[in-house]
């Protein structure tokens, strides 16, 4: 099978006043193209750290990460940024929209960063796809939570990423809204053939994924 994301012996330690603290130890995994994977675990189990390392947002203390053919651990910060720009999309629990930008401008942002000239047309198309064609000129504060997360999803998919990382995407939403957001996320995922890596507490959500990786105290307990 075609592996798009692979980690080998991944570890992350931080120094604290009480000495060195291992947040993540010896995590190895391989995720294939088009797969949907849920990462679960209690608070402090290392879910977010794993996500940050897999996406190249942070550097591991040990081990290696390969994403879409690039060895992230061999790259510097700018190199990893370039990989993210080409292959990665993000959806966050607290949406992380830029408050001073409209919905349309928020979706255009990753395209503009990549220097794409058709940013506007592409962004409008995806916003239509997530059902926000009528609200493109609204600022985040004028949108409901569900609408904000739709904008975030549009922003994540607009670059057609190979891997989409989602960090508790329904954590800030009520159950019904969360359900609709998940429909959208999985729908778009199936449509584009992207790989989905999802960090969540939600059992029902995890159950919809093809595979579940469980973390406990920084270790994978159920591959």
């Amino acid at each position, binding site marked *: 099978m075609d592996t798009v994301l692979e980690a080998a012996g991944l570890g992350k330690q931080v120094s604290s006043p009480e000495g060195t603290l291992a947040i993540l130890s010896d995590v190895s995994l391989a995720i294939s193209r088009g797969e949907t994977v849920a990462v679960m675990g209690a608070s402090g189990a290392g879910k977010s750290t794993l996500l940050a390392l897999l996406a190249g*947002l942070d550097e591991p203390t040990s081990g290696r990460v390969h994403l879409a053919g690039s060895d992230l651990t061999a790259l510097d910060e*700018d190199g990893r940024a370039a990989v993210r720009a080409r292959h990665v999309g993000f959806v966050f629990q607290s949406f992380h929209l830029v408050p001073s930008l409209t919905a349309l401008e928020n979706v255009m942002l990753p395209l503009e*960063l990549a220097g794409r000239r058709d940013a506007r047309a592409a962004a409008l198309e995806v916003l239509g796809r997530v059902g926000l064609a009528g609200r493109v000129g609204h600022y985040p504060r004028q949108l409901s939570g569900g609408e904000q997360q739709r904008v975030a999803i549009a922003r994540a998919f607009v670059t057609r990423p190979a891997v989409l990382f989602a960090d508790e995407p329904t954590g800030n939403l009520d159950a019904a809204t969360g359900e609709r957001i998940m429909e959208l996320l999985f729908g778009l995922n199936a449509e584009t053939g992207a790989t989905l890596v999802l960090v969540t507490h939600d059992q029902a959500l995890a159950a919809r994924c093809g595979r579940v990786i469980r973390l406990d105290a920084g270790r994978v307990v159920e591959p």
Partner: protein
Amino acid sequence: MASLPFVLRSLLRDLKSGELAVLLLALLVAVASLTAVGFFTSRVGRAVTQQAGEVLAADLRLESPRPIAETYDVEAASRGLEVARILSMPSVVFHGEDSSLVALRAVGKGYPLRGRLKIADEPFGAARPTDAIPAPGEAWADSRLLARLGVPVGASLSVGAHTVKVTQVLDYRPDQGAGFGDLSATLMINLADVPATELIQPGSRVSRAVLFAGAPADVAAFREQLKATRQPGERLQAIEDASPQIRASSERAGRFLSLASLVSVLLSAVAVAMAARRYATRHLDNVALMKCMGASQGFVLRQTVLQLVVIAVLVTLAGTALGYLAQAGLAWLLRDLIRSDLPPPGVATAWLGLVTSVTILVGFALPPLLQLKRVPPARVLRRNLEPPPLRYAAVYVFAIGAVLALLYWLVRDPRLVTVVAGGIGATFVALALAGWLLVKGLAPLRRGVGVAWRYGLANIARRGRDSVVQIVAFGLGLMVLLLLALVRDDLLREWRASLPEDAPNYFMINIRPDEGDAVRAFFHERGLPPTELVPLVRARLTAINDVPVDRIRFEGDRAQGFVEREANLTWARTLRDDNRLLAGQWWVDGDDGGARVSVEKEYAERLGLKLGDTVTYDVAGEPVTATITSLREVRWDSFQPNFFMVFSPGVLDDVTGTLITSVHVNPGQRPALVDLVRQFPEVTIIDIDALLSQVRDVMDKAALAVQYVFLFTLAAGLMVLLAAVQATRDERRYESAMLRTLGASRRVVFQGVAAEFTALGLLSGLLAAAGATVAGYFLAREVFNLEYSPDPWVWVIGIVGGALLVGVAGVLAARSVVTQPPAATLRQAQ
């Protein structure tokens, strides 16, 4: 990757959202303040340059206090040069009982040889150039003279024994000097009228000049000849000699105003730094997000720098335009002192705006913004991740470097930069220390006040460093305004009060020795107080210790002036009451120690004279040498006739000079002055009150200009306040929401904010009043030798003004924060 359109778009978004408002405004104040002064001084400088060519009204000018031989005119004419003669002297003109001191200028046919006169039909009316000069019996008067006498064009004025009719208003003459002009108003008459005035007597303070103009080679050849053949006391001026002094004085004034505006620049820079730090903090998340989406560090850096470049360009354009408008205000305030139309400013001045904005941005805004580059992208997952802290040493090096660079650009003199930078640094440190003490002093007050005030005072204490910055920013601006507006007046009043009631208010000069008794009799007859007539002999210093003065190098313009000008000498048997001997011996009656002279302290210092030195003067063609046997200190404000050089009896007794006196005249006795001049036309009366009020007028105008420049300082202080409010906005919003959730009414929260800023304003006012009082005390004691009693109004106006200004501005700026519903705020803060 960072394309200009992308930067422009994100800049536009930031502008729309108000994120950059304070930074832009502060930068705008800095650029406007510096360019306003820059444009103004450039205009004055260009006026000086433009008029340098006509400042002599000729190509070559021969001046002398004595009559100049006609042979020069003949010789010049034979060389094909144009010639004109003029004569000038201080005099007094009368209209009825009103009198005014004038610079009388009698001009002959052909004047001016270079440049043109401008005249107008009405005082301060529209001027037009003319090639004529006043006809005999007519006079052209300065607008100021007509205004002072309160007479229209067409009035008759008495000049000595002669009466002339004012037919035109004299608007401009080429040799009036550009930049900051002299005090007396000009009255121009025809040279042919001079004998009829009977003003010219032996010893009169007359300056005569012959003007020459022609082809450069002819002028140069004639100049060489004149250099060789001119008589003692005859001074030759070519264009290249004429302008440096004027240029130097207008450059000094410009430099002073620039330094004054630099204070606003510094404060604005502080506001820019605060605003930039806030902007950086607000954008940490956005930058982390952009990095998450693939933006490289280089992209963030380029975006930041490009954004600053765009800001610099925009603010430079707007600020320079504002500065241009503001300089028009400055030119208007000083319109009476600058007696010529100012040309437009030089193009080079426009660079000043760009240099200012770039320097401030690089020195104060760049360091915090550079932090953005180092935001870890994982911040999108963990909010507590921050870029590595700023290295403060590096930040200060940037800022101080920027300030020094700007200072050097302004004054172009390393020594002055050191002095000014040291002075500014010391002042800021002293003010900051005082501000810090004031903030600390607030703590005990918190126990005795209501909840709103306690909340306000607690805020000041908690934001201690920002509070001190705000207090200093406002305190400095207020202090200078108080100093110039109130303390200056107080000092002048104190000085006036220190003068005796019957201090002389009129000087009379040019009294002929053979008329001394008649003048004394006239005084007695008209009930004027008995007066001492003091001899005055005009002479030129020719040698010190037998070394000719033209072979001695003197330090400074003043010393050079002392040597070049004709000196006034006197002789006396006894030491006057208002003189004090500092060294040496006064002569005793009857002993014969030869020719001796007593020298005034400052004069001796300037020329480097010591006891035992000999000085030689050319007195009416005869050398007179005397030994310095004493040094004196003179109280000049006794308004008695006093002299730098007082000779022993027997040296100058036989020289024909004039007599001089000063006298106190009651308002009721003023008609006697008119009769005195009618009876003794050569006597010149100088009205000391009028002279002092003229000096005061000039001081007022100059002070007004400086105050105007310091208004920018207040504006910069306002920017610091806005930046501080903006920096604490999120904090305040959250606090106010908490307080209101806990049950505080909007009114209480509002009162707390009002209390905080009113207290800040009170402290700045206190600091300003204290600073102005200390400065006033120092000036009074050390500079003017006066007793200074502190003015309560300085404290009242300083404290009330500060509290109102800062209180109102602060409440307005923070208003929107407390009026938000708490639920929205708390939801956002989650």
